[in-house]
């Protein structure tokens, strides 16, 4: 049995429904709880089941809320989350006026990586300037938001696979990070 706990949201899974029901009735003796049935919406993530049993996770509403918060509701969609030649430097322009907005938006973007893993690199970049964001860092954040405007209905599809394999990929790209001269490295593990 697996139980995922996120403060007061709990996901329970096991091979049979009767075992799950047994745990829920046991918990019910100690807490007032609501059995929401089959997983459909948790932690701001919408979970939809396809007819053949695959699971599609999306954060459409979360992205919409993010647009409202940053006044970007009518943003023009972009095809990529970052300009490929971007060199996000430490300094170079004036300090961004609303530091807490920057932190709040970037924090929300980090949470979005769950269903939009393709933005993780760009989000990681803008995260590095949380303590002193500048105007051009905010531009990069807006670029990510514009990208999301075009992919708002996309999500992560978890597909059935008869054998689960763990695969690992590693990539070291020497000398391309112009800011620190440290090699950006990537390691990726996938479970398929």
């Amino acid at each position, binding site marked *: 049995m697996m139980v995922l706990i996120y403060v007061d949201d709990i*996901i329970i899974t096991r091979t049979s429904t009767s075992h799950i029901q047994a745990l829920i009735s046991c918990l019910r003796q100690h807490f007032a*709880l609501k059995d929401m049935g089959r997983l459909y919406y948790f932690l701001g993530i919408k979970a939809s089941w396809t007819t053949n049993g695959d699971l599609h996770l999306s954060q459409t509403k979360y992205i919409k809320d993010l647009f409202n918060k940053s006044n970007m509701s009518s943003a023009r969609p972009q095809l990529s989350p970052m300009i490929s030649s971007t060199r996000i430097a430490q300094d170079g322009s004036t300090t961004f006026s609303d530091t807490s907005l920057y932190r709040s938006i970037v924090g929300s973007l980090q949470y979005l990586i769950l269903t939009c893993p393709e933005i993780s690199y760009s989000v990681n970049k803008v995260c590095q300037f949380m303590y002193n964001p500048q105007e051009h860092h905010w531009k990069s954040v807006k670029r990510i938001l514009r990208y999301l405007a075009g992919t708002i209905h996309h999500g992560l599809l*978890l597909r*059935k696979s008869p054998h689960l394999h763990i695969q690992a990929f590693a990539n070291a790209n020497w000398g391309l990070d112009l800011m620190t001269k440290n090699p950006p490295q990537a390691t990726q593990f996938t479970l398929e």
Partner: protein
Amino acid sequence: MQDEYNALIENNTWSLTELPKGATPIGCKWIFKIKYNADGTFQRHKAHLVAKGFHQQHGFDYSETFSPVVKPSIISIVLTVVVSNNWPVHLIDINNAFLYGDLKETVFMLQPPGLESAIHSLVCKLNKAIYGFKQAPCS
């Protein structure tokens, strides 16, 4: 608001006492929120009594602030296993989750505005954590 208040009372969240000399009570207020469904449609109104936790002092009113959260990557891994094995998944939601933890420290709070008892000078000595407390997520 009355629902939330009843839940707090039923839970034995606090007991009314005289404020001992030298103790400072922390304030509280009601927060009203509209809850929405996943598709953005209206679900219900919700009232929360929150304590002004920012008045608490570390080491005095609270010491630990840790709460159990699951890592996003674990969510993906578990759901992948679930989908591949066709397991059933259930979602449950604990009502008033924060009100279950017993409070180790002694904290006094002013009575909730609008629902004071007849004697206004009394304060609430908290037995359980409520929303807004620094230590609430870990109780």
